[in-house]
């Protein structure tokens, strides 16, 4: 598909959609699908057919609209009504409402609430707005425009420059400047280079990558292809965990459709540039999200990390220079190319640019997926967008960064969300999981939960992580049971120090973070557990 053909395809699709006077979009991404989204869609479809409205009303599947706790969600256009908690039985009412242009009052979800109004969508701009299984819809929404632009009007160096200017940093959690990473791979001499997309999202409570892959897979593929062009790679691997079957299905279908349309594969957009993408499924190991372990897994070996350097950018997949970025990082690329690095850099803070997608979970009213500008405070996220903790409970802490992150207490909620600020608090940005805890949560038990996770997910290669996390778990268990002594508290702190400073990879290095941050902000909870013994 040449750029002209791409524009034409977009026009044709828009014209086809314009034939319908109304559009009913039902979320069938994992969150809504788990509470009957697919059945709702079928029921509405049947109802529309029965009432003979098929010619004027389009019923379609879309991806995640964000407010997962209120699912299944149904959006009606052009009047912009959003229905929540829809059941298949509501289909007749909803379809009748279409006819009269009178929404069903009981089901209406206000879209002017802060949850929607305070968000700023870049990566998620098409999530919930297009049918992820239909390439023309993605194209009509601006999909692959950035790729066509990059391939036909810019050199690889110019593409990298744009990404560098944007200030984009790795969204998988590390926050490494994306432009620098791309430059390193681009400058490496090699006959073969690879691009890998890391979709091994494993933090408990995190579902950003899943939602994006399920809702707008073409955006990720487009970002990967632009990256491949920029660094000079001709093969790519999409590493997705097998626990995301819907994301895998939609990705497969997206790859097939993009290949058929000449947007992936040989001579993309009619240029000499070729890029093939294969999917690799993760077999359930959290550590495979670590880049060197991920590479080992793609190569078919045991998913265990190796010491760096050499970094994958120098020696990665099969020893070739390899670019590894997270799903969300690639999701930012098409917009940066289309609108420019300066535009992207105008959002966010001095060192953290653009927006970040977060998965809000735990004791919070609005559970779901959000995208906010960097620099927004945690308080705004929890209380404005998230709607605060449910009635009758008090906010206690917010956990960011999963098993590698930490718990942030109430008095620090005015901290801006950026890589440095969160790091100073002993937590990390992480991939974007945010778990809110109310006053009924025990911080010792929270630390124990995450340590149990790290212990179970340690690959076992290096001693401090393999044995250290097991001892830390036992110690935390002792605290939780109320059997700990003051000597145990000292030992706990010492072992955290050893594991943090001597482990081989990020999993072990960051495994003590949940303990250290709860010790820092909620030390009294540990001490209270001690008193029970001495008294």
């Amino acid at each position, binding site marked *: 598909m040449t750029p002209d053909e791409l524009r034409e395809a977009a026009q044709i699709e828009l014209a086809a959609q314009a034939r319908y006077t109304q559009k009913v979009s039902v979320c069938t991404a994992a969150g809504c699908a788990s509470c009957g989204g697919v059945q709702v869609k079928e029921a509405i479809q049947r109802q529309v057919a029965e009432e003979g409205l098929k010619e004027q009303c389009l019923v379609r599947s879309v991806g995640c609209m964000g407010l997962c706790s209120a699912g299944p969600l149904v959006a009606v256009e052009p009047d912009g009504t959003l229905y929540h908690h829809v059941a298949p039985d509501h289909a007749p009412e909803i379809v009748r409402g279409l006819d009269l242009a009178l929404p069903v009052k009981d089901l209406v979800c206000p879209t002017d609430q802060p949850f929607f109004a305070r968000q700023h969508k870049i990566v998620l701009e098409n999530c919930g707005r297009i049918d992820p299984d239909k390439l023309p819809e993605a194209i009509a929404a601006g999909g692959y425009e950035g790729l066509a632009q990059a391939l036909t009007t810019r050199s690889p160096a110019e593409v990298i420059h744009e990404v560098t200017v944007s200030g984009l940093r790795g969204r998988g959690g590390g926050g490494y400047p994306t432009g620098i990473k791309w430059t390193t791979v681009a400058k490496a001499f090699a006959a073969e280079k690879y691009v890998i997309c890391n979709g091994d999202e494993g933090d408990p409570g995190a579902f950003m990558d899943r939602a994006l892959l399920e809702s707008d897979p073409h955006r990720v593929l487009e970002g990967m292809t632009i990256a491949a062009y920029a660094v000079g790679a001709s093969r790519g691997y999409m590493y997705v965990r097998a626990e995301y079957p819907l994301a895998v299905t939609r990705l497969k279908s997206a790859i097939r459709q993009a290949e058929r349309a000449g947007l992936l594969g040989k001579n993309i957009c009619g240029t000499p540039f070729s890029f093939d993408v294969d999917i690799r499924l993760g077999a359930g*190991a959290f550590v495979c999200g670590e880049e060197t372990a991920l590479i080992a897994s793609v190569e078919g070996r045991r998913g265990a990390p190796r*010491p760096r350097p050499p970094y994958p950018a120098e020696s990665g997949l099969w020893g070739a220079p390899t670019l590894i970025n997270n799903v969300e990082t690639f999701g930012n690329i098409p917009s940066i190319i289309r609108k420019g690095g300066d535009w992207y850099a105008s959002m966010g803070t001095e060192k953290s640019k653009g927006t970040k997608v977060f998965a809000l979970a735990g004791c919070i009213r609005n559970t779901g997926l959000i995208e906010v500008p960097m620099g927004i405070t945690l308080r705004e996220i929890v209380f404005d967008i998230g709607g605060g903790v449910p009635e009758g409970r008090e906010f206690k802490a917010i956990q960011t960064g999963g098993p590698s992150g930490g718990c942030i207490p109430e008095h620090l909620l005015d901290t801006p969300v950026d890589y440095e600020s969160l790091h100073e608090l002993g937590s990390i940005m992480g991939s974007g999981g945010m778990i809110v805890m109310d006053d009924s949560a025990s911080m010792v038990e929270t630390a124990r939960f995450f340590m149990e996770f790290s*212990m179970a997910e340690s690959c*076992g*290669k*290096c*001693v401090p992580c393999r*044995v250290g996390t097991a001892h830390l778990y036992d110690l935390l268990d002792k605290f939780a049971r109320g059997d700990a002594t003051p000597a145990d508290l000292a030992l706990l702190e010492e072992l955290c120090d050893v594991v943090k400073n*001597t482990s*081989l990879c990020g999993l072990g290095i960051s495994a003590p973070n949940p303990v250290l941050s709860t010790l820092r902000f909620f030390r009294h909870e540990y001490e209270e557990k001690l008193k029970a013994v001495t008294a």
Partner: protein
Amino acid sequence: MTPTPRVKTFRIDGRDVVGREDQTVLEVARENDIRIPTLCHLDGLTDIGACRMCLVEVQGWGRLVPSCVTKPEEGMVVVSQSERLARYRRTILEFLFSERNHVCAVCVSNGHCELQDLAEEVGMTHVRVPYRYPGLAVDASHGRFVADHNRCILCARCVRVCGEVEGAHTWDVSGRGIQSLVITDLAAPWGESDTCTGCGKCVQVCPTGALTEKGHSVAEMSKRRQFLPYLATMREGRR
């Protein structure tokens, strides 16, 4: 055509040393009689940086690095002995001793054990973390050898020597984390392994009493590593 490796001058523990850029800090240290403790490293096998005993400080680098996989850089300042490193090394040894059942007094390798020697070297006199006492099996199904998982420290020397040198790849690691175990073939008893050639290299490279020859009583099993320098030379040639 590979470019000729350059020579780098740097410092270890205040001493000026010289190494080629394709060597490791550990190799250069040993050439200069600077003793850095190691467990998973063995000359002639690929280094994996797993045991973390050889961690050293490098001035200006934020993190500690394993000297067995760190290449010399011009002007780098390496510290291999410090109070902090000694503390970490002791704790890591405590981790290893507590992980499984290392009962020296009844071990066939007593007195010929690298784990034991290291504990003496770094002054690990007692273990402060609770012993885990896992109930692990002893595989005596092989005609000449025994695998006692209670003594295994998962250094993966057996895995590497079997795969890289003997070429059989009988050994590998199964499970993960604290549940990891070295296995023969797909966890079949050693004696039933189709791939094992019975060469015994794994036994000879094993640092502890985990892999031993049959017919030895307490403290009688000493390892014969005469073939190792030869091995290293062979690998040099392959480079």
